């Protein structure tokens, strides 16, 4: 029966794709919801606070409570708003943010689609998100949202140029736009692109922070100047959609940076066989998590919370044992390392927010146009020249001539 169903799914590539899409969509929504929780917790700990503690043990049910609250709110449309555009704009933002995940390779054995123009598709579709922002700001017919939308779009397009040029440096090395191929190339070379293109990596990370409207570049939502920026007039579920789009974009730029620069699903030193014991990292880290959860639970004085934490710890151990089987262990390698790298990136995003003061708008534009673009151009030209000099099969290679 089960085997039969498995065969049917395998025989229909589109059916398999739909199942994968639903998995990615569900996991992504969960990650986005708990990313908000993680942000509140990490920020709180960095400021010597506790963060959400009331809803569920250690505030673990806070995202669900927030989501339910926003779903049950009245759907307010301000006077003078362009109703159709006002209703459409958040959906555009969400659509653009989610669709890009169709070409992100989460692991060598788990991706929805591998198209040969992957990177171009990502740049094109993720840029569509700006329509959601500018249409939402414009249609509200209020001063703050309009100014927020203008700032946001100007900031986005300024950093988009530098990010695009930084990515060309990676393309010069990998010679392919397919995301899967770019990771495979890093495996062949035995070195991640970040070590060959450090400047491009730094430029891309800065641009990614700016494009997601995060600190220290969160001018569009500078609450002391513009209340909430482009979504000031939005409430209820439509506000939740914008919120989701922003956090999905954070996950997205992390995934792109990890794929292009940090070796995607490859484990560190994937070509060094002496480090093969690292493949035990997934179960070991799950057991480590179980120990931590148990320690948290023992501190609690509420019996129900204690039972919950103990059950959670046991669950972690059980999953750890299940994935220790060689077949499953091999299958989860890619997902595990990809997830670890993306999590580290997301943590860095929150860290920036806790650390850096906000830029002034003219400083922001200065950094974008007078520093990032020349640096990205210089990186591009240097990479192209060095790449040419190093390519051995070029007949008139000056290096070959010098070494003659």
């Amino acid at each position, binding site marked *: 029966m089960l085997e039969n169903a498995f065969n049917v799914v395998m025989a229909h590539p589109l059916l398999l794709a739909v199942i994968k899409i639903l998995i990615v969509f569900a996991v992504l929504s969960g990650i986005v919801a708990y990313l908000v929780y993680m942000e509140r917790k990490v920020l709180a700990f960095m400021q010597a606070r506790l963060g959400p503690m009331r809803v569920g043990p250690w505030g673990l049910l806070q995202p669900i409570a927030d989501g339910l609250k926003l779903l049950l709110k009245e759907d307010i449309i301000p006077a003078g708003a362009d109703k159709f555009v006002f209703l459409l704009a958040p959906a555009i933002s969400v659509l653009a943010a989610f669709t890009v995940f169709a070409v992100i390779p989460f692991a060598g054995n788990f991706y929805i689609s591998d198209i040969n123009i992957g990177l171009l598709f990502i740049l094109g579709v993720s840029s569509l998100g700006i329509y959601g922002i500018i249409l939402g700001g414009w249609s509200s017919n209020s001063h703050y949202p309009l100014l927020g939308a203008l700032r946001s779009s100007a900031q986005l397009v300024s950093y988009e140029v530098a990010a695009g040029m930084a990515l060309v440096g990676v393309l010069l090395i990998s010679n392919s736009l397919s995301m899967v191929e770019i990771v495979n190339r890093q495996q062949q070379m035995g070195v991640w692109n970040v070590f060959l293109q450090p400047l491009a990596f730094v430029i891309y990370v800065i641009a990614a922070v700016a494009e997601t409207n995060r600190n220290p570049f969160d001018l569009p939502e500078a609450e002391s100047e513009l209340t909430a920026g482009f979504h000031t007039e939005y409430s209820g579920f439509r506000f939740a959609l914008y919120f989701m789009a922003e956090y999905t974009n954070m996950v997205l730029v992390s995934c792109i940076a990890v794929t292009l620069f940090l070796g995607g699903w490859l484990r560190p030193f994937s070509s060094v066989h002496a480090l093969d014991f690292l493949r035990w990292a997934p179960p070991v880290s799950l057991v480590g998590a179980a120990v931590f959860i148990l320690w948290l639970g023992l501190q609690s004085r509420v019996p129900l919370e204690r039972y919950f934490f103990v059950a959670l710890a046991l669950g972690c151990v059980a999953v750890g044992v299940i994935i220790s089987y060689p077949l499953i262990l091999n299958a989860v390698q890619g997902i595990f390392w990809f997830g670890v790298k993306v999590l580290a990136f997301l943590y860095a995003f929150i860290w920036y927010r806790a650390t850096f003061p906000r830029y002034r708008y003219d400083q922001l534009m200065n950094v974008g146009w007078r520093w990032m673009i020349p640096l990205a151009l210089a990186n591009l030209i240097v990479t192209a020249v060095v790449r*040419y000099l190093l390519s051995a099969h070029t007949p008139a290679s000056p290096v070959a001539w010098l070494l003659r």
Partner: protein
Amino acid sequence: MLNEYGPILIFMAIAAAFPLVTLWIMKFIRPKFNPTAEKVMPYECGITPESDARGRYTVRFYIIAILFVVFDVETIYLFPWAVQYQVLGLYGLVEMLVFLGVLIVGYIWIWKRGALDWI
């Protein structure tokens, strides 16, 4: 072709349907939209708005938009060049240096003209 782009189209359809369907379903649960004059007034920190928001704004944003089009189109030209770089060899390198040279001259010019100054 269908195997590669079919899943992407399905993903797009699901991503588009998710907000719309959720909004539609919640319509039966959430309280009805009950407008009052204060509730639908544009938010300006408690002050009654005096003018329509869609007025004129600084020309800087237009300049940034125009510059973006120039630079972004030129970045897009670099993508196919970078993918085919190994094939093009010295010819590709020199051609692209000329192309970038023209761009850099233009970049220096807009810098000197003050198009990058903010206020």
